């Protein structure tokens, strides 16, 4: 069976530090924090009052008013990011085979804004008043559905719902569909919009969120000893993936190659990572093995790095398990120090950042890194972006439920190594 090489030819993002790829990247390498006081709802009774919100997003820049009203915020983000990615890839939709054009966009939670709004209607006004759009706006697969409708993508279409690993699973699964010949082009990534009272009540009850309400831009501090929880973000990241043959035939600009994917489960606990780091270690190992590479070939890891005590301790351990002594040679950084944790969108946005790292040969920093933690003793690219030779990079996403996903991206070369 012929296996296709798969390349990345277009990128699109909606993020707390920029609603297009160039603004996002410039802010990412200048170390800008997107965290501030929550404006989306009244936080008076909430222990956590900070988040990384998307600002200045007008869905009407992308979607007609009638259709935008029928989309949850997470779906609006996905449609916007997909439209940017299609444009960036120079894809002429009337010149590709719609039946071989697919979508794989995930979300951890889906239409929580819609759910909360309509549940209030149910309680306050009764079942007859609930909007007929409640279910189609709320369900988690609707980003993939709406994107296919808008862009006429009639090929493979699905959604991965694996909490904070959703985006990376979608990209990995789309990569496999292309590799094994099920499609020519895929829009893949993740989206999330859960800066809502219900989400903050639930995540706060778990003690998962940073409570640094008075110092928002310093709150997300992955790998720093004083990290005290993640900061919720929102947004979307969507990539155009296509087979190398398809990209070459249409003369596309190739940003990077995606060459490996690993997914594993901890099979340990509903929220805590396995303290041996075994699950993510195997996930990373599978990603470089599928690419036909050795541990020592990997230059950079775009870490899950949530800013929680447990994640960074065990993700660091997992990197050491997967890479041995080479763990101390490679660079590791967390975009979440700036954009917060975008849950199911994290893998989408961070894959975009990883592709741009390969393109520009600049590693975005981990900001707010001030206090070394003896458990976290790798090179986390503290506080300042770094020019570096990055040929091969892995992006990790680890989700509640023990889902681990890693994708391997590498600089595109005509002859595969």
């Amino acid at each position: 069976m012929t296996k296709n090489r798969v390349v990345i030819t277009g990128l699109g993002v909606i993020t707390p530090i920029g609603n297009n790829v160039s603004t996002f990247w410039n802010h990412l390498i200048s170390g800008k924090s997107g965290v501030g006081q929550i404006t989306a709802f009244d936080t008076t009774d909430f222990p956590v009052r900070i988040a990384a919100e998307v600002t200045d997003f007008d869905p009407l820049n992308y979607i007609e008013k009638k259709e935008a009203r029928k989309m949850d915020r997470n779906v609006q983000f996905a449609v916007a990011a997909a439209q940017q990615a299609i444009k960036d890839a120079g894809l002429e939709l009337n010149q590709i085979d719609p039946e071989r054009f697919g979508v794989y966009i995930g979300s951890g939670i889906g239409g929580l804004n819609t759910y909360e709004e309509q549940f209030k209607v149910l309680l306050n006004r009764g079942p007859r008043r609930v909007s007929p759009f409640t279910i189609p706006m709320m369900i988690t697969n609707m980003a993939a559905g709406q994107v296919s409708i808008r862009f006429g993508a009639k090929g493979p279409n699905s959604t991965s719902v694996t909490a904070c690993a959703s985006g990376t699973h979608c990209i990995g699964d789309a990569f496999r569909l292309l590799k094994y010949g099920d499609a020519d082009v895929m829009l893949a990534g993740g989206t999330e919009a859960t800066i809502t009272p219900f989400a903050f009540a639930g995540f706060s009850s778990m003690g998962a969120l940073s409570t640094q309400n008075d110092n928002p831009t310093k709150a997300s501090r992955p790998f720093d000893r004083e990290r005290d929880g993640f900061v919720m973000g929102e947004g979307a990241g969507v990539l155009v993936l296509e087979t190398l043959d398809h990209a070459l035939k249409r003369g596309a600009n190739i940003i990077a190659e995606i060459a490996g994917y690993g997914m594993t489960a901890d099979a340990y606990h509903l929220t805590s990572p396995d303290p041996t780091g075994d699950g993510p270690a195997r996930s990373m190992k599978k990603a470089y093995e599928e690419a036909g590479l050795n541990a020592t070939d990997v230059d950079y890891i775009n870490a899950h790095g949530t800013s929680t005590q447990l994640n960074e301790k065990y993700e660091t351990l997992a990197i050491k398990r997967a890479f041995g002594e080479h763990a101390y040679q490679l660079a590791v950084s967390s975009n979440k120090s700036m954009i917060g944790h975008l849950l199911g969108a994290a893998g989408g946005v961070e894959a975009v950042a990883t592709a741009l790292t390969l393109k520009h040969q600049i590693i975005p920093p981990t900001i707010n890194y001030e206090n070394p933690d003896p458990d976290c003793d790798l090179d986390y690219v503290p506080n300042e972006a770094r020019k570096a030779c990055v040929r091969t990079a892995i992006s990790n996403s680890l989700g509640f439920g023990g889902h681990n996903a890693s994708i391997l991206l590498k600089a595109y070369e005509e002859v595969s190594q």
Partner: protein
Amino acid sequence: MAETTFERVKGIIVEHLDVDKEAVTLDASVKDDLGADSLDVVDLILQFEDEFGVEIADEEAEKISTVGDIVNYIENNL
């Protein structure tokens, strides 16, 4: 009076279906001429109920085809 109800109905339709004011005539079919699908129709019924304080039963809602049907129903049931 008739015009007032019609104007208010028209305003809701223009807002929710994003159509031109001129397209919303008494004879216009909500589905065929104004592009509403079955979910849009249910959504519009909820909006009319809120705006006019009437209750439009499901079996009545099914009979509604044109903008004129809506206006008549509302005026007869206010």
